[in-house]
């Protein structure tokens, strides 16, 4: 770029670095880096936070080389549908390659956040040893490690501020891992061990948190009995975020009042979660802090509607509510009346497989919330029935949705009154909610809904589709529209080869595409792989019958397909059920 050098040299590098530090998003910094060589050089040396949405999109060593001053890294591994057991357990997503490269090139790393990755104890030991100023470890939906690995972190990370373990599968082989925090260790701000299954030594925990004056978040696991919660809370009255342990106890005359006063003593509490086995007996102990709560997660508490209503109607400042469908429509109507600041609602199914009596949670609850909560922008709702009329009302009431995920639990369920597909309802949502970034569809849907989505969902970044559509047109509408689409995941839809091949270029503008139990053939995948060298086309066939995939004919159906853009080429750690086509 002629003249580029000259004007960049008008200011010393440090000035440009300072300017870049105001760029809010990585995308902005990426854009700046493309302006001229000087800016590329300056920007890369001053970027200290990286986000890698797909761990296989780039070689770890390349990332480390490009941004040598990184202090905080976030990396994601397996595709989202791994959460629902659709991805083979040995698919990949191992963290070792990244941790090794980071240990080599980013010795000053302070924060590491991994999601859906396989993290071994060796990885944790490497982290503990190599990053002298390590402060934040966040593992979400990961697996492969044990409490022995956590012991290494505890023993060696002298400046650890956050240990955030969220919904991981952790093997319990080291009961006393928490004792490995040295007596001098006092820097914890966040400790989330809710997902650990084993016993926690509460006395050790008490001493640990007692010496951490900056502790703001403490989320316990279900092994911590209610009686001990009292003692813990007395040590950390400054707590902002509490995850209780087991919220039930044998009858104990003084426990209620002790608990009540311990909780009341935490004057800064804004977020509550946990509540395993919660019953009506001890729930009122938290009434005193309800008014200050902004976040309440009762989604593991099997409380019934009336108890929930009594509790939630006191939470006038609630912004986030996660609850089970036991709240029923009546409960949601009460929420709509009380929680005017509600922004995010998630309603989980207490009985997903329909073996019990039906719960009275229907479209009415959703409509009530949409009408009563003007700030609502994020919804996850599991239910068994829906109507287009209800969805139209919701769309009209809430044009500000950024995330709308509706799961009608029986596939192909139509509008239960008109027996029509729910195309009209979901179309209304995408047409009304101009800022919608995430959408999950369910119920009986034809290609028409995809036409609306393709045309209207201009901000949509993630779309999840299951048991929907009539044919290729549906997928074509999506891929030829939705200009900001990043992640598309599809299961059990009659989408085939043509829309994939016709929209091959689109796939390079997206992070990833997952398709399982659709109508894609091997031949199309081969063509796609040949045409698009910057895509990894992974074919996953678990049944392994007959010939190996290389010898299968073009018309061989593909069970599962995962396509993602990458500059790293095909990965080398594929298991036997995964083929990367070239």
């Amino acid at each position, binding site marked *: 770029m002629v003249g580029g050098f000259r004007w960049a040299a008008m200011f010393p590098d440090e000035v440009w670095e300072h300017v870049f530090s105001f760029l809010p998003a990585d995308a902005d910094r990426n854009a700046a880096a493309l302006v001229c060589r000087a800016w590329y050089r300056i920007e890369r040396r001053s970027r200290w936070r990286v986000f890698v949405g797909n761990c296989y999109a780039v070689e770890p060593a390349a990332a480390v080389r490009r941004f040598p001053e990184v202090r905080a890294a976030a990396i994601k591994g397996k595709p989202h549908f791994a959460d629902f057991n*659709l991805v083979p357990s040995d698919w990949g997503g191992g963290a070792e390659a990244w941790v090794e490269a980071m240990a080599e090139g980013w010795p000053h790393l302070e924060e590491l956040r991994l999601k859906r990755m396989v993290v071994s104890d060796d990885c944790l030991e490497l982290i503990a040893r190599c990053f002298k100023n390590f402060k934040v470890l966040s593992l979400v939906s990961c697996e492969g490690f044990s409490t022995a690995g956590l012991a290494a972190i505890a023993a060696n990370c002298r400046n650890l501020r956050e240990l955030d373990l969220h919904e991981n599968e952790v093997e319990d082989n080291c009961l006393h891992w928490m004792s490995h925090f040295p007596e001098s260790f006092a820097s914890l701000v966040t400790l989330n061990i809710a997902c650990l299954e084993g016993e926690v030594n509460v006395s050790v925990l008490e001493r640990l948190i007692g010496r951490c004056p900056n502790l703001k978040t403490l989320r316990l696991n279900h092994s911590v009995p209610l009686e001990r919660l009292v003692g813990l809370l007395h040590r950390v009255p400054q707590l902002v975020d509490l995850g209780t342990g087991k919220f039930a106890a044998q009858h104990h005359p003084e426990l209620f009042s002790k608990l009540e006063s311990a909780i009341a003593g935490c004057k800064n509490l804004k977020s509550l979660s946990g509540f395993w086995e919660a019953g009506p007996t001890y729930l009122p102990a938290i009434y005193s802090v309800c008014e200050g709560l902004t976040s309440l997660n009762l989604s593991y508490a099997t409380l019934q509607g009336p108890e929930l209503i009594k509790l939630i109607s006191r939470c006038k400042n609630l912004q986030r509510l996660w609850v089970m469908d036991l709240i029923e429509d009546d409960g949601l109507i009460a929420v709509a009346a009380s929680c005017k600041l509600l922004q995010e609602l998630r309603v989980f199914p207490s009985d997903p497989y329909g073996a019990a009596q039906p719960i009275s949670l229907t479209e009415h609850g959703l409509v009530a919330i949409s009408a009563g909560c003007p700030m609502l922008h994020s919804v996850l709702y599991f239910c068994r029935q829906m109507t287009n009329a209800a969805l139209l009302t919701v769309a009209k009431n809430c044009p500000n949705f950024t995330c709308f995920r509706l799961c009608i639990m029986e596939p192909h369920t139509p509008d239960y009154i008109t027996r029509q597909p729910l195309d009209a309802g979901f179309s209304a949502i995408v047409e009304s909610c101009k800022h919608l970034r995430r959408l999950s569809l369910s119920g009986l849907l034809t290609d028409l809904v995809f036409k609306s989505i393709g045309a209207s969902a201009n901000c949509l970044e993630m779309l999840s589709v299951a048991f929907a559509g009539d044919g290729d047109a549906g997928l074509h509408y999506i891929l030829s529209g939705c200009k900001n689409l990043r992640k598309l995941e599809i299961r059990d839809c009659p989408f085939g080869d043509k829309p994939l091949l016709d929209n091959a270029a689109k796939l390079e503008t997206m992070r990833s595409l997952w398709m399982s139990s659709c109508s894609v053939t091997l031949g199309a995948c081969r063509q796609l792989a040949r045409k698009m060298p910057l895509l990894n086309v992974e074919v996953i066939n678990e049944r392994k019958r007959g010939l190996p995939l290389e010898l299968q004919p073009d018309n061989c159906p593909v069970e599962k397909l995962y396509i993602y853009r990458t500059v790293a080429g095909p990965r080398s750690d594929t298991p036997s059920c995964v083929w990367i086509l070239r």
Partner: protein
Amino acid sequence: MSPSPEHDYTGGAVEDGALNLKETELRLGLPGSESPDRDDKVGITLELLSPKSFVSGAKRVFCDAIDAGSAKWGFSAGEAGSEVDKGKGSVLFTPKGEGSAGGKPPGLGRVGNDAAASGQVGNSGKSHREVAPAAKAQVVGWPPIRSYRKNTMATNPPKYKEDVDGKLGLGCLYVKVSMEGAPYLRKVDLKTYKDYRELSSALEKMFSCFTIGQCNSQGIPSRDGLSESRLMDLLNGSEYVLTYEDKDGDWMLVGDVPWEMFTDSCKRLRIMKGSDAIGLGKFRQTEILNNLQSELLKGSDAIGLAPRAMEKCKSRN
């Protein structure tokens, strides 16, 4: 001698299609003589147990365990859902569900069916809560609920207004599976399998990368490391045995009891090296079993297994 129909360990009358005690009966048969219709079977039927005891007790070889050609894990070979090869091996005791062609268990196994069955077992005569009418096969990964949530709810099921015992079939039954030498353990949902064959097949897939040690440092198997035939070779000598911890905390060999009984009582699974499992296989003898054993060992390759079950059964009586 045909089995008495009221031989029901639950104490109540059980119809065909529901939990059928015939599965725990012991039958002698010549090698290769399994047939779908058990009533036709010629041979001696031994009823060692009183109706009240719940477990088979006698040594019972899991279907095809001694199948010389293709033993894996001490389990039957072949993929889930495939036909049982009736010609193979000398199977002594075959529960009704296992040896029959097509491997179809008596009406149970899938979630919907389990829900229906749980309404009957142990509650004969008592009017149980209404159960979902349609018994559907459970679709993998649907509804989209994260495994973590499913596990947590399985250990803490919701208590419904009229559900007295709170034992609601949540449609999943996650148990941990660990294996000696494996760097981490896995969880399986027992409700997604309808018989031991499916379970063993799934476990093989899950753990095959650990057995031969062809994993790279990430614990992820490399492509060229592994094939099913190699796995079979390794396991041909029944080097690995599948065991489980039951409700009482005892470790038992998998395969002793009918599938449904197993899923009800299994708390966790462990894949042990065969040599370590010998303790479990130690045979505590009684008069009856002595006689039984000598009868059975005539002209067969029986390997005695599951005496722990017998122990428990005896102590119960």
